[in-house]
């Protein structure tokens, strides 16, 4: 458990050093995540030590939004005057992104001939 947590923090630390050192716009933890996937692929036994602390943190992912979310108390003014346009932008972009993403997946899967498996799964899922 301790080894897994230490490993996660080490990859975050390494990611921060790379991001700051090279002046990248990507957050350090994202670099740490990508590096950790590569590390799992090269040394599969690392995965077992990281798995349980990582799944522990991710199972309560929503809790981690709360402190920043409470910061809304400082943004009443911004949301008050621009609330309508912001909500419209969020709604339009989310609906469009889901539609475009799903339709693109289906179209490319059909072109690449990988559609059969997904349709079977969809059929099984509908009976649930």
């Amino acid at each position, binding site marked *: 458990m301790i080894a897994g947590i230490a490993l*996660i*923090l080490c990859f975050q630390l390494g990611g921060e050093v790379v991001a700051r050192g090279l002046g990248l*716009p*990507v*957050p*350090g*933890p994202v670099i740490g*995540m*990508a590096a950790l*996937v590569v590390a799992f692929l090269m040394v599969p036994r690392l995965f077992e030590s*990281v798995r349980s*602390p*990582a799944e522990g*943190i*991710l199972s309560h*992912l*929503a*809790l*981690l*939004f*709360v*402190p*920043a*979310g*409470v*910061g*809304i108390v*400082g943004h009443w003014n*911004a*949301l008050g005057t*621009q609330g309508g*346009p*912001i*909500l419209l*932008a*969020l*709604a339009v*972009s*989310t609906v*469009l*992104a*889901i*539609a*475009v*993403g*799903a339709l*693109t*997946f*289906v*179209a*490319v*899967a059909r072109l*690449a001939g*990988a*559609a059969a*498996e997904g*349709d079977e*799964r*969809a059929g099984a*899922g509908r009976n649930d």
Partner: protein
Amino acid sequence: MTDFAEIWSYLNEGPLLWLTATLIAYGIGDALARRAGGRPLVNPVLVAVILLAGLLWATGTPYATYFEGAQFVHFLLGPATVSLAVPLYLARGHVRRVALPLLAALAAGSLTAILAALGVAAALGVDTATLTALAPKSATAPVAIGIAESLGGSPTLTAVLVLITGMTGAVVATPLLNILRVRDWRARGFAVGVAAHGIGTARALQVNETAGAFAGLGMGLNAVLTALIAPWALSLFL
């Protein structure tokens, strides 16, 4: 006996009070969400934020004082981002089999989310600071907050926009994809994960297991892609 006001001011100086309040508020939100049968509108984060914001307002506590305690929870966003390596690694078999549709849907969904949000907001005259917080809103919260911070946007405003995006996606996904007649659970889940991150993924898991796994994958991949393209997309609108 010590005056209550004295005890209050003592507690307000340390992290204990507001760290405890954060966990209890989230616990209440989680219990309510379970009782509501996972309806996306009763979201544990939304409930916790409303309870805590009300408590801060009622006690006249500044956000900075609250954050002294809540920072220990906030800090875990970084390790949580690194931890996304685990679901990504577990899904590696899927990724190889449908690499092409995945990459195409990732690029199309991610670009649509960012450009449509910035386009609509800019056209309606939303200010620059808010556009900066809006750009990474489809990425999962820890990553979106990190991106907003590195672009000079407000992390707290971004957190609020990320939450609203997730809940919108969770509510509209099923009816929208039924209207579009998308029956492939991989496509449905993946698109929701890309557009509506963790909250969308939690919703996809309720509907179908395959959709849930692909939603988690979409969330993880879009975290990386958003970090790469958000600075560029934002520069188009400034």
